[in-house]
């Protein structure tokens, strides 16, 4: 359903532009437009995914195109949660453009062949593996953004010089809390996703570990976020160090995400990025 995805992209673009304008001009009316068009985009996007599923006959998270589209969808869901829970509209000015770019890339890539997907959809472990990981990546992106916002503001508070950003970003305690919760959620999803992947591999090939670059990165990522989650979950306020961990963690996430196509990996399923 390419035409529907065009509509999704249009809605996300409108949301991105209005989020940025709302961020710059601090206007509530623009923010409303952004949120409504994001909601419309999300509904259409969900419809696109369901439609893909129905037409192609496999879970709509397999090839490169589907992965990008699904990741964009997961990010919208994540941002919506942040909005609902923390009213941190500023996140949208950064998340919405990225979501738009991901959707645009998904549109550029031609539809994946459905043939190779068939053998993976025999068990429900594979879709769980991929879905959990995509949502974990979305959560880690939110940790990353909140961490950057924290570091930026902490620096300005210490230096006592406030830039335009300062007045537009959510409060220090808010971004600290967003990072803490998103990291915990992301770690849970990552764990579930990895366990599902290991079991899936075992059930299919009788083997749990392949020494794949992607697998190695994934385990490193898991370790880092495990440390981060433990560090953050103690009763003490965790500011700067945890924020730096959130930033480095995301670099690892990117490595994991891109390891397959770049380093040559078993995880290349019909050009998949997972």
């Amino acid at each position: 359903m390419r035409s529907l995805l065009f509509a999704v992209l249009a809605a996300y673009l409108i949301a991105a532009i209005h989020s940025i304008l709302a961020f710059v001009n601090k206007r509530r009316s623009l923010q409303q437009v952004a949120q409504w068009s994001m909601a419309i985009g999300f509904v259409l996007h969900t419809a696109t995914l369901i439609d893909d599923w129905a037409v192609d006959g496999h879970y709509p998270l397999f090839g490169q195109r589907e992965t990008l589209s699904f990741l964009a969808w997961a990010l919208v869901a994540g941002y919506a949660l942040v909005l609902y829970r923390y009213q941190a509209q500023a996140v949208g000015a950064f998340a919405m453009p990225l979501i738009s770019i991901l959707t645009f890339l998904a549109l550029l890539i031609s539809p994946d062949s459905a043939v190779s997907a068939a053998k993976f959809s025999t068990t429900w472990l594979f879709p769980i593996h991929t879905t959990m990981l995509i949502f974990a990546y979305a959560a880690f992106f939110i940790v990353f953004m909140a961490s950057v916002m924290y570091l930026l503001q902490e620096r300005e508070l210490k230096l006592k010089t406030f830039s335009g950003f300062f007045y537009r970003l959510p409060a220090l305690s808010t971004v600290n809390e967003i990072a803490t919760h998103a990291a915990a959620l992301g770690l849970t999803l990552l764990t579930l996703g990895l366990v599902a992947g290991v079991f899936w591999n075992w059930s299919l090939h009788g083997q749990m570990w392949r020494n794949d670059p992607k697998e190695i990165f994934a385990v490193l990522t898991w370790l880092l976020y495990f440390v981060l989650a433990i560090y953050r979950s103690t009763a003490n306020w965790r500011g700067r160090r945890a924020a730096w961990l959130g930033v480095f963690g995301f670099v690892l996430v990117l490595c994991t995400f891109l390891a397959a196509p770049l380093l040559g990996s078993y995880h290349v399923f019909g050009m998949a990025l997972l």
Partner: protein
Amino acid sequence: MSIILIGLNHKTAPVEIRERLALDDAACAAGLRSLVDGEVVREGLIVSTCNRVEILSATANDQIEFGAGRVTQFLDTSGQLPPGFLNDHLYRHTDEEAVRHVFRVASSLDSMVVGEPQVLGQVRHAYSLAVEAGTAGRVLNRLVHHTFRVAKRVRTETGIAASAVSISYMAVELGKKIFSSLKGSTVMLIGAGEMAELSAKHLLNAGASRVLIVNRTEATAQQLANQIGSATVVPFEHLDDSLHDADLVICSTGAPDYVLKEEHLRKATARRRKRPTCLIDISVPRNIDPACAKVRNVFLFDIDDLENVITSNIREREREAERAELIVQSEVMQFQQSLRLMDVGPSIGAMREQFQDVARAELARQRKKLGPLTKEQEAAVESLLMSTVNKISHPILNQMRRFYGASDADASQASADLFDLEE
């Protein structure tokens, strides 16, 4: 109808004059009743605050001078001043200028501190007094409601009131920036001076739940605690023991040396599980050791830091005020347009009535010749007549609206005359 605004504010009159003219609620109501006579001054509203006394009134178009004279005279007598005494201090705006002035005042563009939020409430209060006194009519109702809309637009679409411009309010601003909400937070005042009191009041308004007062002279601290209401006095020797409770510390003692040092903060921060602390030092010489800022999650601001931020905030407000002026400008034009259409409203309505009456009368005259009709047929005949009349009269009415919109009084009068209409 014309709108006249006469008054004075902090820019045109010193406080000695403003205080003589300031009216309390009862005086406002009485003044409005005596000023608005329904003949010359048809509608009236008085805004009286510590920075301005302004009288907004509506008169017939040809009685502007007379009406303005009455208002000036009213001001003279209410201030018990000789006639002409106020001439140098009063400003007078009519119609478009008056509308612009009201919009600017309510949007806080004319305030001493641009963007301060109280003035809108004061205008609102003035309006409710006028409504109670029965002196707000067709024109002022419309103007005041439009004013509220403009003020809201300015507030939401510009950052005119976004940042703090006073030292006492900076504490609230910084607290919100760090803790996101001050609800449930604890504030410690070291030193019981005026600045401490003002900051504490702002912080309590913003939701702070506990105030600790530390002062060398305990009696002074107790006095301030009583004034604030919900405050606890902490003996100076126990400062160290309760420092970890404080999210915000405002320090304003006259001590010649540092009251808070780095090791105090290290201990307190560890005890409060590394949660951030915001220290504000408004005393000169400084009472908080600058080295405290080295402690992680401690944010220290001295008086110069605050002044710097405030200066840049004021500049920011001025930039935003320019944007606000553009909004006011476009709203003034819209209001003037709607006012003209309001004038034309009754006569256009009357004309349409007249046309429809003619059609109905004709139908009644010819009805018998049509014989018995079903309900549908009856309705069809009537709608046929009405839509014919409406379609024919539509361009004429539109033309009239345009004349009024362009404020072409002669042309609109001519069209009213053409159909023998009276206003």
